[in-house]
């Protein structure tokens, strides 16, 4: 299934986890639990040592994953080991993409990702201006390249991004870094309005925490929701409390259901 197909039936629920957090095995179980809970696509974080776009929750997940030995190669093995049907998006920073293989730009990384079954990329430190080489490699191997539209993105920048984006567009609900919040930002509707005529699905992320949030976002017109920190929090708490993998996985699955349900409710409200 392609990424845009994942959004075609109903509002999509797109969870994020850092791959390998807190261990390779547990993380496989967690990602699979999310799929069971109704994920339509999954963003898998490949951890980078300088995650400038992340808030504290995901930063800590990245540290746990790195300390457990995660590398780009292990990441691909992780993807290959996963037993899920939904499309997988690799979320990472550009230096890892750039360094992979013989150093010949992003192509080796994309080739390897395609082979492992990755459907697309989100690279938070790669604005459209710098995305040419990666876009070309993605085209060559048939992968999508997702861009983030920020509340501050306007005019020409939107046009350039529209040209490059595929799979879905990641609408950043508010300024700042990733992290769960109690309030849903007003920026969302405005942002969605600005890109109303884009053909790719519009997924909103940053700060979504509950089914209720999800519902409101979807009723505001989003084609899907992206949820990271609220899920990573569950992983972190389980890790801190030394709970067994199955317990944490169940909790993730339940949270996934709540969020997916919220999204569906939101969609019904719109109709």
């Amino acid at each position: 299934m392609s990424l845009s197909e994942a959004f075609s039936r109903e509002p999509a629920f797109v969870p994020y986890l850092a791959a390998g957090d807190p261990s390779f095995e547990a993380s496989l179980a967690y990602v699979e639990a999310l799929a069971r809970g109704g994920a339509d696509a999954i963003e898998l974080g490949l951890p980078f040592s300088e995650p400038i776009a992340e808030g504290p929750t995901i930063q800590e997940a990245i540290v746990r994953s790195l300390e457990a030995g995660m590398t780009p190669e292990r990441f691909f093995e992780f993807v290959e080991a996963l037993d899920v049907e939904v499309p997988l998006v690799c979320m990472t920073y550009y230096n890892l993409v750039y360094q992979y293989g013989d150093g010949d730009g992003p192509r080796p990384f994309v080739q390897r990702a395609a082979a492992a079954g990755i459907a697309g990329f989100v690279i938070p430190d790669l604005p459209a201006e710098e995305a040419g080489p990666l876009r070309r490699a993605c085209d060559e191997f048939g992968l999508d390249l997702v861009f983030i539209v920020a509340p501050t993105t306007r005019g020409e920048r939107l046009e350039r991004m529209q040209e490059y984006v595929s799979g879905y567009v990641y609408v950043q609900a508010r300024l700042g870094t990733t992290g769960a919040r109690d309030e849903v930002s007003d920026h969302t509707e405005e942002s969605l309005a600005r890109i109303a005529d884009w053909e790719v699905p519009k997924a909103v992320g940053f700060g979504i925490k509950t089914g209720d949030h999800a519902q409101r976002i979807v009723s505001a017109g989003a084609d899907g929701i992206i949820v990271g920190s609220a899920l990573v929090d569950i992983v972190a708490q389980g890790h801190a409390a030394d709970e067994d993998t199955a317990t944490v996985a169940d909790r993730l699955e339940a949270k996934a259901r709540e969020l997916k349900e919220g999204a569906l409710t939101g969609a019904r409200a719109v109709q």
Partner: protein
Amino acid sequence: MSTNSFGEYGGQYVPEALMPAIEELTDAYERYVRENEAGFIDEFRQRIRDFGGRPTPLERAEQLSQRYGTDVYLKREDLLHGGAHKLNNALGQVLLAKYMGKDRIIAETGAGQHGTATAMAAAHLDMPCEIYMGKTDIGRQRPNVFRMRTNGAEVNAVTTGRGTLKEAISETMRDWARTVENTHYVIGSVVGPHPFPSMVRDFHALISEEARDQTREQVGRLPDAVLACAGGGSNTMGTFHHFLEDDVDLYAVEAGGSSLSVDEAAGVAPNSASLSTGEEGVLHGSRTKVLQDSHGQIMESHSVSAGLDYAGVGPELAHLVDEGRVQAVNVDDVAALEAFHRLSQLEGVIPALETAHAFGYLEQEQDTLGDLVLVNVSGRGDKDLETVLEETRERDLSIAPDMEIFREVAGGSL
């Protein structure tokens, strides 16, 4: 491919949320800094003179000249307000933020030099200011924390990672991503996304503008070689800029630390020699030479000098090194410590430990640098006294003065 590049280096690798600010900044840079719109550059020059103390002198170092049989001249950035070249940039950027209508300043700091310079500039221009600093650095750079607080700046502790400069930069970028609409991020060296590397260089280029005129006036010709230490490379680019077109050898002296080798497993490079040993990569918004492991994870750098202790370097400098226009060289911790003492004892100028690296290279290569050598004294060493004392004692360096006096007076331990 981005046009904001120095050869293969440079670019704007930042989160989308920041891009509009970066574009706004690029526009402001072009108009105010490059074209002196609204008299920005005039005001900058007047303030860096009256508030900052420019021009800084060019001094003939008599004892060093005699020691090396070479005319050695010092460009005295240590005399700039705050004690280092840093204010050129901090004042320029805070002023620019004012022209841009921003009403809040943030900055990262490692050793605290850029943080104190920014806090001073912000107080001077009546701008609220917050400085991000790693908690490890806060612990070991108390006096600079006092100075920032005394100038009215907030200091925010960064607790991620090892709690040093690299983490502080990342954290400041996060703040900026949140507050970009009213906030300007005053980055501390010629690093980061375009236009920072060019803009920071332009503010510091006063160094070489003056030094070039001063050498011609005082000596009647241009130097054969120009030396500057290089961490991020801001004093370096500032010192080199106006000599780029001249027949003058340029040496960027990096921190060789304790060794040029790296420990992949621990993720540590016990040096900060990114120009000499780093690989092309993307860090903190630009493509440049970076200390990284084979996967592309950034290494923890190390140098006895906190201000050089950074895994990246300015993209323009990386480019000039690749082009062969600038020589990337390095000296180790011991050579820098010895040079610190040498300059202090022979010339009555206590240099910053960063600066001492350039003098370490001068000592090593005294015979090959020509007849007229210019060294940038990027800062003063008051901030480093405790560190030097400790590091010198550990290594039992014979050039270092003893501190028996404290034992004498205290009748006990130091």
